[in-house]
Structure formats: C-alpha cells, structure tokens
C-alpha cells in the first residue's frame, strides 16, 4: 500500500541526512503510530509520503503509484497540528475546499460530488457526522481547537482518500477533547478501513491508536526499523487494560534509552 524503498532525504544546508537507505512498508488498512522525539523527522516522513517534499534518492509508492501522484489529486489526506484551515473561509467552505480544487482543475468527479449516503452530498454528510452542521457558516477563528481539527479531518475525508496521514493532530488540544478525537479517529478507521499513519510524541496516544508502532530515534533513520507490535489497539476499552500500560512502559523505556 505504502512502500518506501531506499529513501534518502537531506535538508538543504544540513550535513547529515535525515533518512538514509530507509525502507518501510505499510499494508492496506493498517493503522500505524509513529513516535519519536521532536525534530527527529516524523513530519518530514509524512511530507515525503504526501509528495510536498521530494526525496533525494529512493522511491515511495502509494497504491502502486509513485509519489508525487500526478493524476490522483487529494487521495492522500494530510491532517496537521495547526489545522491548516483557510481563515477567510467558513467551516462549510473549508470542508468543500478539496472538491472546489478538483472543479478548478476540471476533475469534477460525479461520484465524489454527488452522494456518499443517500442524496446528501459528501460535504453535508461529514459536517453532520462530525457534529459541525450547526457551525457551517462560522469562520475558523470562531470555533474551538477541537472543532477546527474536526473540520480539517472532514475536509480530507470528503475526498475519500485511500491514505490518511495525521501529524500530531491533537497535540494542542486539552485532554478531554483529545481523547474524544482519538476515539473518533479509531471509529473512522474501523468504519472505513482506511490506511492510517498517526505521528505523535505522546506515548499513550501512540499506544492507544496504532496497531503497529514505528519508533524513530535520532536521525539518520535507516533500516532495520524498530517496530512495536500492538495488536490490542483499536478498541475504546484498551486504555484501561494492563496490556496498554505495559506497552506504554516499554515504549517509554525505548525512548529513554535513545535520549
């Protein structure tokens, strides 16, 4: 599904590469957490998969197409910590943005723009699914952080992406909102089976969400990768189980050794 082979990436003006002969394979429908210290290159990895940054060497393919995917606009969803919403557009306009971009390029795909469930358009469907219907005419500055992140997620889902990449999406939110959105993310993944990569520096979040956890230490990152299997994730009750605490403790030890 996502296949990274021999990836090398170095930031301009940096002596050492961030990724050096890096291989990673994410199968269809998997939910991965990626954890590591700040500045270790977690976000860069997502940027490379979306194709907003270019690798110096190696190949990245998503669904068999090499990145950046020219003909497949908006099929890799990206959700960021600071939402990335347009401040001058209402909630509804923000959710509709991806469709408007498709129209702009004359790629008005009937399947996408007409109906996801019944006669309701995809935009209306996700607005309602995320409890945003009453806020549709508000601007991002008028709603809470949790609501903004819902808008950002809805905006990517409207395009029916086959991959969802989330870059510390809930880091700026308070604990109840955060757990609320973590649960929403789980539900979505269970419903759609969408391949999901969730980057975080929060150990509990990584363990709660990812059925596999990629642990990144100091760069350069190269194979073999450190992967923690976490088959218990994916259920709301997992947070309260002993296995959850055990996994979190294990991950904490690994990260402490790195530091």
């Amino acid at each position, binding site marked *: 599904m996502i296949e990274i082979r021999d990836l090398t990436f170095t930031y301009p003006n940096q002596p050492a590469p961030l990724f050096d002969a890096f291989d990673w394979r994410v199968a269809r429908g998997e939910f991965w957490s990626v954890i590591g210290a700040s500045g270790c290159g977690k976000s860069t990895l997502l*940027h490379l998969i*979306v194709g*907003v940054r270019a690798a110096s060497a190696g190949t990245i393919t998503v669904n068999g197409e090499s990145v950046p995917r020219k003909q497949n*606009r*908006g099929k*890799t*969803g*990206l*959700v*960021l*910590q*600071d*939402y*990335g919403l*347009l*401040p*001058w*557009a209402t909630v509804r306009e923000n959710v509709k*943005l*991806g469709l*408007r*971009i*498709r129209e*702009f*390029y004359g790629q008005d795909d009937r399947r996408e723009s007409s109906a996801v469930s019944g006669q309701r358009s995809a935009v209306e469907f996700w607005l309602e699914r995320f409890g945003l219907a009453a806020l549709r005419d*508000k*601007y991002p*500055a*008028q709603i809470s952080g949790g609501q903004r992140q819902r808008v*950002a997620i809805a*905006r*990517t889902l409207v*395009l029916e992406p086959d991959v969802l*990449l989330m870059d510390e999406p809930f880091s700026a939110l308070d604990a109840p909102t955060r757990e609320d959105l973590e649960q929403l993310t789980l539900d979505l993944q269970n419903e759609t089976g969408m391949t999901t990569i969730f980057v975080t520096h929060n150990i509990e979040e990584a363990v709660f969400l990812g059925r596999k956890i990629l642990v990144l230490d100091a760069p350069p990152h190269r194979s073999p990768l450190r992967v923690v299997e976490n088959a218990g994730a994916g259920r709301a009750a997992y947070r309260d189980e002993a296995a959850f605490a055990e996994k979190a403790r294990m991950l904490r030890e690994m990260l402490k050794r790195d530091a």
Partner: protein
Amino acid sequence: MRNRDILLAALALFIAWEIAALILNREILPAPTDVLVAFVAQLPRGLGWHFVVSAWRVVASIALSVALATPAGLVLGQYPRVNRFFAPLIYLTYPIPKIVLLPIVILFLGIGDASKIAIIFLILFFQVLVVVRDASAALRPELLYSVESLGAGRRALLRFVYLPATLPAVLTAIRVSIGTAIAVLFFTESFATNAGLGYYVIVDTFQRIAFPEMYAGVVAMSVLGLVLYFVVDYLERILCPYLFVK
C-alpha cells in the same frame, strides 16, 4: 464606529467651521453654509466635471497599480531567489518621494492624463508590491502543505490561498495611500492643465479670488478622498467578511 457617529462628527466639524467663520468675519474664510451654496451651484458649472476628471485619474491609477503590483508581489513572495535579486532595488527606490520624478515623467509622457496617472501609479505600485510580497511570503508552509495535500498545484494555490490571503493587505495599502495619492494629484493638476480639482482650486477660483467657489473645490477634493476611503472600507466588508466576525 457606526454611520451615525460619522454623521455626528461631520456635523461637529460643520458647526466648528461656522463658528470660526462668524468670529473671524473675513471673506477669506466663508461660512460653510455659503460654501455649500457655492458647491451646489458650481456642480453643474464645471465643478462636477473637474471632480469626475480627478476621480478618473485616481481610480485609474489605483486599478493600474493593483493590477500590476499584485502579480509582481506574488512572484516576489513565492520565489525567494527572485526576491533576493530585486529586494535591494525595491529597498533603494521605495523611500524615494515619487513626486520628485514628476518633471521626468512629464518629459516622457507629456502633460496630459498619462503623466498624472503614472506618478500616482508609481506611489501606489510600491506600496501594494511590498505588502503583497510580505503577505504571501508570510504564509506558513503548513497551510500550503495541507492545501497541496488536497490536490492543489501552483494555480490552485494562487486562486485558493495566495489571492485571498493577500487581499486584506492590498486594501490596506490602498487605504493608507489614498491620502498621498490625492495630495499628489492636487499638485499635478495645479499647473499646465485645464481640468481636475487641483486646476479648479489653484488655477481657476484662487486666481479669480472667488473664495466660496475655491472652498467648494477644497470640499470636493476632500469628498473625493472620503468617498474612495468609504469604497475601500465597503469592499473590505464584502470581500473579507471574516475580518469582521466576533
């Protein structure tokens, strides 16, 4: 600030002027009531025409400068390399009072509308250029990445991000430049021409010692500035409603 407050402020100015005219009691300061009468009387007899000529010159300059400076500013803001090349040139020419170039502009473009529009254009062009450049360069890369991830290429980014992001800056640049633009227009119309409010005030009425008419011209010039100011405010409300929500 409500419309009623603005109306009250105008009324207060009117009354202060009326009192000043009463106290001074000289013909070099006619009462506003007399000026108003002259204003209404002169409108169909030339004043209105001069107003239209001046308005056309300012509006044409604004339109021209926005039309040319916006794309130039967007290019400079998006390509740091191009900006690095031009930045010293802009830095050097930005603070030059463009009005001193007037004789040169007149030599090249003559004394007609073209030279007047060109000199105001020069003033506004740099204002708009710099704010558009800075506003587009200040866009956070995260915002651009997330819109790119929705499928936007360069053209869509321009349409859905860069243009709306720089619009408030353009309107602000116009608003702060209107005063200078009209001052410069007044100066350029005060010689070697026979149309425009500057001509009406300095050449026509001032030299005829027709004081109420001259004051009517001054009022017309002020009204021109105010109207343009209101139009920009109105455009901002229509085009950037998100700036006004609470």
